[in-house]
């Protein structure tokens, strides 16, 4: 029995280890490449002379910081608008009873399942006519399709978790609706709100289809820039790795910060982790 148990435990850990290698090795290898000079790229595997030359090339000699800046502005702007418009909407959908409530909620959710290309093709024409093509505002607006459903659905769940009694008690104490909302409810949902906002930021930062087709000349978020890098520089693998690493880093750091709320955010509140 104990031998069998030990065998089982070894198999279990081995299975996990194999998956861990599959999942994590590509990222480790990418970071490794960033320290490898072009000269050693093809001749060495794990043992080489680490150098920072790739970082210098990418960060100092290209427009990389501009791409990062574009990504921050667009993803950050999208999150801010979604939070400002989405949190009150989430509250209304959680607390009020009104006609068509569920229809509205599902309409908002359905944006999440709209094929991006379907939106982009006609939008390309509209943006072209309105002068929104290749502008920050144009991208921030279209990113609402990514961030708004997430904010509304996840935050709605957090509002529903708060007992109505708390609001009633505050009313008895003479708080106005605004005071209740900002002084009592918002602080209560803050961890969940921050987590879903960060998750929105990650998704907007990672978005590729929208910026590829609706921007790309003056405004070039990092995902689009990095893929162009791959297409142009077929020999400087180390520099590509730097580009990829800098694109992946913020997302991973944010994800670690919001670990606790991640399941809820990713499943739009359907699975409460």
């Amino acid at each position, binding site marked *: 029995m104990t031998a069998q148990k030990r065998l089982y435990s070894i198999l*279990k*850990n081995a*299975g*996990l280890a194999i998956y*861990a290698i599959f*999942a*994590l090795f*590509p*990222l480790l290898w990418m970071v490794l*490449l960033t320290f490898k000079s072009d000269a050693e790229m*093809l001749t060495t595997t794990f043992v080489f002379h680490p150098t920072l030359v790739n970082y210098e090339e990418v960060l100092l000699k290209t427009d990389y910081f501009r791409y990062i800046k574009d990504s921050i502005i667009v993803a950050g702007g999208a999150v801010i*608008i979604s939070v400002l*418009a989405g949190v*009150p*909407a989430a*509250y*209304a959908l959680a*607390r009020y*009873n009104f006609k068509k*409530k569920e229809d*509205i909620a599902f309409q*908002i959710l359905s*944006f999440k*399942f*709209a*094929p991006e*290309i*379907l*939106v982009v*093709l006609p939008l390309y*024409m*509209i943006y072209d006519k309105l002068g929104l093509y290749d502008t920050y505002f144009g991208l921030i*607006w279209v990113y609402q*399709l990514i961030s*708004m459903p997430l904010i*509304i659905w996840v935050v709605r769940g957090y509002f529903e978790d708060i007992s*109505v009694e708390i609001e009633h008690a505050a*009313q008895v104490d003479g708080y106005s609706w605004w005071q209740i909302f900002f002084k009592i409810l918002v602080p209560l949902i803050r961890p969940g709100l921050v987590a879903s906002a960060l998750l929105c930021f990650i998704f907007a930062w*990672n978005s*590729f*289809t929208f910026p*590829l087709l609706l921007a790309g000349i003056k405004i070039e978020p990092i*995902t689009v820039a*990095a*893929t162009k890098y*791959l297409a142009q520089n077929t020999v400087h*693998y180390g520099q590509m790795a730097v580009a*990829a690493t800098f694109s*992946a880093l913020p*997302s*991973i750091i944010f*994800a670690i910060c919001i*670990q606790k709320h*991640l*399941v809820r955010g*990713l*499943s739009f509140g359907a*699975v*409460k*982790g």
Partner: protein
Amino acid sequence: MIQNNSTNNGGTAPTDLNVAPLSRRIRPYLIVAPALLITIGILIPFGMAIYFSMTGYTFRNPDPTFLGFKDFAFLKNWIRMFQDAQFWNAVWVTLRYAFWSTIIELLLGLGIAMLLGNTDNRFSRILRVALIFPLMVAPVIGTLIWQLMLRSGVGIIDKFLNTLGIYGMQWGASSKTAMLTVVMIDVWVNCPFVIILVLAGIQSLPKSPFESAKIDGGSAWFNFKTLTLPMLKPTILIALLFRLMAALQEFGIIFALTKGGPGDTLMSLSVTAYTRAFLYQKFSGALPFILVLWFIVNTVAKRIVTAWRKSQYQATGKELEEVAKKEGLIKRLVKGGKAK
């Protein structure tokens, strides 16, 4: 108390809307309106897509004067599409890609989540955090990393295969392995999504049925089949919903890896529509492709959501009751099952 009745009843009962003043009645709509307006503005394209799919719009002919019926094509674009062999190929590629990536992610994700849920050592605790890294990397960046790993000369996987005596694997560049390669990358990026969802589902399962089953001494497989799986069904369906919808529409990974090639091996509906609209400049001819995709996605999503609602009801009530009756656990189950 009474004056705020309609605003703060917590959605438990229909309120006296007839009594409440107009300002209070429209307040919820006013609060939802900004969010709705922002997103619906983006939705106008949906209607336009259907409309323009019936015109002769191209970038060179940006004014097809459809109201004057000059270039009104009606169903021409649609008929042409259904007669097009590339369209049927695109549907087939889309369905195959979605099927394989989703099924592998679900099975692998379920397996790894079960392993993680049953293990509690330092390794598994670190893994729970580290596993989400690939999910957080942009899919196109993930594709870029895999491209480097697979590339002959520099790629570590290529080097590894060379030591095993395998040379010249073409991966994305060969029509035989292109599908395998994109599915592999999709699994790498998205499997963690299934893992962390199922893991959360496992952790929220009620303890008591399992304790009772332990006393009854059922095999591990029996417990998994009759207890864990039915109770996890809602979580699994949510994972299926999100993954399948995204896989049907996947554009970034395929585009970044091969742009749909070699030939039309990976020409899914999304990639075909992009290629036709932006490379061939046949804008209105590309729209039906993507409208068909939208129809597929919508139909499938509705079915899964229905199944999810049903399973939620079953998982917390009916079906488990029957299982429990067989096991003689009913009392404990009702206590644990409703705790959720």
